[in-house]
């Protein structure tokens, strides 16, 4: 398996999302508060994963512009949840740095200036639930 394919599979596995369910309605992009800041738009995340272009996704601005507000996750009519895909793509980046998901309690002592702030926000959102 090519490394791109592997990464695409990894993103699907981490997010638990089947991007093929997407019907390209664009409700995610319509809901996104960071839309204008993004180079790759939320509805495009899905096709990037389908097309296994993870390289572009990982290097995109969007990866760190997503606020993890989960509006797209809430509203997606097809259960595709682009927010989760982005979250998973971030996780791929984090794992490349040999790290992994954090427990909320572990965060304060592990605070590393290298870690993107966006990831922390995302983690807080996730663990608050």
């Amino acid at each position, binding site marked *: 398996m090519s490394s791109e394919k592997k990464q695409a599979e990894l993103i699907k596995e981490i997010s638990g999302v089947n991007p093929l*369910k997407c*019907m*390209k*309605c*664009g*409700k*995610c*992009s*319509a*809901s*996104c508060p960071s*839309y*204008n800041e993004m180079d790759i*738009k939320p*509805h495009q995340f899905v096709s990037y994963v389908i097309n296994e272009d993870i390289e572009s996704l990982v290097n995109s601005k969007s990866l760190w512009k997503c606020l993890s507000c989960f*509006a797209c996750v809430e*509203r*997606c*009519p*097809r*259960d595709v949840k682009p927010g989760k895909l982005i979250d998973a793509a971030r996780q791929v980046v984090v794992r490349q740095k040999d790290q992994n998901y954090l427990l909320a309690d572990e965060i304060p002592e592990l605070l590393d200036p290298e870690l993107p702030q966006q990831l922390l926000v995302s983690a807080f959102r996730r663990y608050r639930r």
Partner: protein
Amino acid sequence: MQRIGVFVCHCGSNIAATVDVSKVAEMSLMEPGVVHAEDYQYMCSEAGQAKIAAAIKEKNLTGIVVCSCSPRMHEATFRKAAERAGLNPYMVEIANIREHCSWIHKDMEEATKKAVILMRAAVAKVNLNAPLQAGESRVTKRALVIGGGIAGIQTALDIADAGYEVDIVEKTPSIGGRMSQLDKTFPTLDCSACILTPKMVEASAHEKITIYTYSEVEKVSGFVGDFTVDIRKKARSVDMNKCTGCGVCQEKCPSKKAPSEFNRGLNTRSAIYTPFAQAIPNVPVIDREACIKFKTGKCGICSKVCQAGAVDYEQKDEIISEKYGAIVVATGFDTINLDKYDEYAYSQSKDVITSLELERVMNAAGPTHGHLERLSDGKAPKEIVFIQCVGSRCSDDRGKPYCSKICCMYTAKHAMLIRDKYPDVNVTVFYIDVRTPGKNFDEFYRRAVEQYGVNYIKGQVGKVIPQPDGKLLVQGSDLLDNRQILKEADMVVLATAIEPNPDVRKIATMLTASIDTNNFLTEAHAKLRPVESPTAGIFLSGVCQGPKDIPETVAQAGAAAVKAIGLLAKDKLMTNPCTAQSDILLCNGCSTCENVCPYGAITYEDKEVNDHGIRETRRVAVVNNALCQGCGACTVACPSGAMDLQGFSNRQILAEVDAICR
């Protein structure tokens, strides 16, 4: 000992590509009783059936096994073929080596092995088959149509025109259904009432049609050709025979606060009311929840003003029991509840409405008398946004997974009508796909765009945000331009998904008609028997079977009528001979079987028996073969094994088990 022939079908390559058909035929010759085996390209073809007939005659076969597609597909075909060749049709068994084997397995060796085992099970069963004779049951030449919308009306008219009696049961006070709520219809823009009301009048005037409005089906028993249905005629509180339909009572009624069902709750009606002016019958009902007389005992104005003396506060629900040969379900649809779609602000703003509500707003008899205005402040809107697929094509539990089919077209219609009547109003449609398969449908949609300048944007709306100034901020995306759109609108119209009438579940259960995961009634065959339910004698008309527009509904209504007429035209029906039978010598007379029989087909009688020389009178179970439907509940409940099911006997099923586990 039986003389069995085994016939293995290739089904072109459908079976032969995965199953070694000649091996199956060859292996069958080693089974007990098998004296003939062959395989052929298409067993169901005329040539294939001729081969079966020839073998039956030449080899003197007493039973045959056809290894082919599902028995649900061609069991009847092969039974008929056998019968023509002089073999009892119930000496035919099918081994399903297509749907249950070749189509689901890829490995030839494995699939062949399985096919052989399925063949063995069928041979083992047919070895124990006995010739069965179908009985006869009579057909009541009267049909029941459940639902008085356009589907029900059309079905009833077609059946009645063929000369059979039809009863329509309608839950609401008038027939007419959803179509009566519509303003104009696509793609020709006829006024809905103008084409519907003549049909309503025709139905009510037809000598063969009886209409029960404000009535519901309460209980169904019996079977094809001989259903007995209890219909509850709810107390109307107005005597149908005396009322002249003058309407004075409605005018004078002091209680006018009840939300109008007909206008989707956008305005109110009186407590004594007819849903709309052209209602049939034109006899009001008293809504007892809203009526002051019923709530407090005081008032009685309607009774006082009624010159015909038709108002009757004492009226009670009445149960009518009637016999029918066929039942047509035409229960229609409703729009889904939008509570779970908070993002569209439907419950927050009066100016966010559903398309069906817009129909009422556009209609001259509607709450705004046909003026397009905002329901919050009555102002004329300048900017209208339509949102497509609200709740349709949705895979989570908020909406429906299917396409509601009619929304693309009615939205184009609405957009066009608004642009036509109010050229200064901007209309924007947010769509995911525009689906216009149908005669003159795409032309219609293109006209909306090209001729009327309706602005279509590909991309779903994310959120509708009511603004303090009363405007609605619509946040959407334009996927083709790749930009996010924020648009201020005065009105937002939601193309809300449709769902089968919620009552259909209850009705389907009473009819034992099957229903799919979306509550649409299942058809007997998706392509070849689209208007019949798998339950014999039950037919489907209109949206209860799946989303459809008016022309399709009318076409299906006619098709359902034809099927019902085909049934009613018969004097007698052949009954399923696979019924339960009790062995008089084994029966304990314990009544256990009687307790589980859903058809009341088992009764107990004192019978003279001769049990190996002992003559005595015993209480024994007797099965009425016309009533028995052959479910087999009694056979398992019977402790002594006296009750057995013909065609699915204990020994037959055990033989199949043995053959599979061999």
